């Protein structure tokens, strides 16, 4: 193609303004793909807040409510379920493991979760990641606590510190369980999930601090921490529990059995499905982000158009020379088309390179800050289609200066406008 080297050399002559144009397109492409990538990663991470858990069981309420309080520590359970039901279901032949969850207390704004050691063994997030200890060990004693990474970090706790739990979610002094402090025995690594914002204590610890409480207030009968240890601390009720099944395929059957459990009204949900529903409610935000980055792209393309149109007048002489040599006006149109094609392709290519360099550079920081690891994958079909659309739009845009130049060259002929 004889026009291509001409286009390249002509463009090279205007390389400063054109390279800025390419940069602006590259940045908008990077932004658009980046937002899309982060959106997909955020969704993946969100959906993976909890994984490998087949069912979550609580007292009968709504699925979203159950998910919110059991996994995200948001809101409250309307009802508890009996320890007896938990024991019965957790020994069901199809059940591999069960994690009891007891919620309701807090520590300086962070939720307290009563559970047992199975939690540290079986709870998984982000695919197959286990909860890991950053330091210390898992609780083994009634008055021991394991802190999530954010709790330890924000409240500046170290191993061996004593913490006092509060009854309910208030931080009012009168509701403190100050007679039975807990010792920090372990601190967890960052997970990027609500686990980071949780104080973990044994179920027996929850029983112990409530043993001398009745219906939300302290009873006149007071038992100190030592005396309490001699009492029966087996919990009477818990808030919810998580189940892992021996065979995944049995999930729906077990769910049905639990939902039809005749001892008390229970609700079993599939965490993955409910998480997807919840994400659907949150997805307006991602749409807004996408729309904003689309506008940035439009601005980038308009910038390209501006640059090319503003070069039109100074290029009139170029066009007249080419006409004299025998170029048809359609050659002139083609010159602009080729130029835009080159600019847009380079912009897109550079945008993709920028995106990946950014992802690679930022990934370790993000893992550190929020515990979310961005999976660096190649562009998917949807993104490739998007890039193709950008290219087509750029070419359509190039018709504007192309047609102006075409008309100029028809009008001017061989006359040079100096």
């Amino acid at each position, binding site marked *: 193609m*004889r026009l291509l080297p*001409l286009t390249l*050399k*002509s463009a*090279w*002559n205007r390389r400063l303004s054109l390279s800025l144009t390419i940069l602006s397109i590259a940045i908008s492409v990077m932004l658009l793909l980046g937002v899309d990538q982060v959106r997909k990663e955020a969704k993946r991470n969100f959906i993976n807040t909890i994984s490998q858990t087949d069912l979550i069981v609580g007292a009968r309420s709504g699925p979203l409510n159950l998910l919110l309080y059991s996994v995200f520590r948001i809101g409250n359970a309307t009802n508890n379920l009996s320890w007896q039901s938990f024991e019965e279901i957790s020994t069901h032949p199809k059940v591999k493991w069960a994690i009891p969850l007891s919620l309701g207390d807090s520590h300086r704004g962070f939720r307290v979760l009563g559970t047992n050691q199975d939690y540290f063994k079986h709870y998984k997030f982000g695919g197959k990641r286990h909860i890991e200890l950053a330091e210390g060990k898992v609780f083994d004693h009634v008055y021991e606590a394991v802190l999530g990474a954010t709790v330890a970090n924000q409240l500046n706790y170290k191993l061996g510190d004593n913490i006092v739990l509060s009854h309910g979610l208030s931080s009012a002094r009168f509701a403190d369980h100050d007679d039975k402090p807990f010792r920090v025995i372990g601190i967890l690594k960052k997970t990027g999930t609500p686990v980071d914002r949780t104080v973990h204590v044994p179920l027996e610890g929850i029983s112990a601090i409530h043993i001398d409480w009745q219906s939300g207030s302290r009873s006149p009968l007071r038992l100190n921490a030592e005396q309490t240890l001699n009492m029966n601390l087996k919990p009477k009720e818990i808030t919810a529990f998580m189940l892992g099944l021996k065979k995944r395929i049995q999930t729906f059957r077990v769910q049905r059995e639990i939902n039809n459990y005749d001892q008390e009204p229970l609700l079993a949900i599939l965490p993955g499905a409910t998480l997807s529903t919840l994400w659907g409610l949150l997805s307006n935000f991602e749409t807004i982000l996408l729309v904003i980055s689309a506008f940035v792209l439009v601005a980038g393309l308009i910038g390209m158009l501006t640059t090319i149109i503003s070069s039109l007048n100074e290029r009139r*002489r*170029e066009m*007249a*020379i*080419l*006409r*004299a*040599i*025998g*170029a*048809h*006006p*359609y*050659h002139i149109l083609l010159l602009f088309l080729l130029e835009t094609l080159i600019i847009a392709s380079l912009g897109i290519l550079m945008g993709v390179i920028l995106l990946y360099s950014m992802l690679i550079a930022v990934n370790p920081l993000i893992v550190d800050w929020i515990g979310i690891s961005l999976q660096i994958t190649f562009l998917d079909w949807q993104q490739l289609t998007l890039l193709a659309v950008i290219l087509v739009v750029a070419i359509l845009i190039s018709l504007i200066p192309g047609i102006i130049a075409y008309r100029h060259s028809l009008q001017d*002929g*061989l*006359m*040079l406008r*100096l």
Partner: protein
Amino acid sequence: MSQSVVTFDNLQFRWPRSSRPVLDIAHLDIKAGEHLFIQGPSGSGKTTLLNLLTGINQPDQGNLNILGQDLCAMNSIQRDRFRADHLGVIFQQFNLLPFLGIMDNVILPCRFSRHRLSKAGDLETTARQLLDELQIPGELISRDVMDLSVGQQQRVAAARALIGNPEIVIADEPTSALDTANRDSFIDLLFSRATEHGSTLIFVSHDEHLSTHFSHCINLADINSILLENTP
């Protein structure tokens, strides 16, 4: 007698949406190998004449025959191809594309015309030879176009007009940016090269002093029967 390369018969041209023609030439005959000087003050229709000769515009009436072909019967793409194949054009100034090297500027017509490409043979050799004939020293060829003097630029433009031996070379005020000494030597060079390469030269200018160089001179005002209101 040598044969005609260009024949005008009852040629009329008017701009679109204009009722009056700007050019009306009863007859004009240009012979092969001729060096023709067309003199005309500004506004006498020089540009229009050039646009017609080069096939940029088409006459509204009459016959325009170049190299035995009827230009009026061609469409715009055919006329552009015809120009690429058979015509070399030199402008007043700024003839060269600033982003191309001297060599690329000279061989540019061969990118648009296979006909001239095949006539030119080896492009590099031919271009060097032409530049040498036009007194552009070899060490200048690697220079930037903008580093050349105006006279050198016009000579490079002449080399471009002559590459691939087009039958007709049209020069539109090519010397108006040159001083007298440069002007005369440029015209001499152009004459000898045109003769050497067998091209007919059509030289258009407002400057009547140049006519002394030419054997055949035409005043456009004499052959264009349109009376101009704004004749200076």
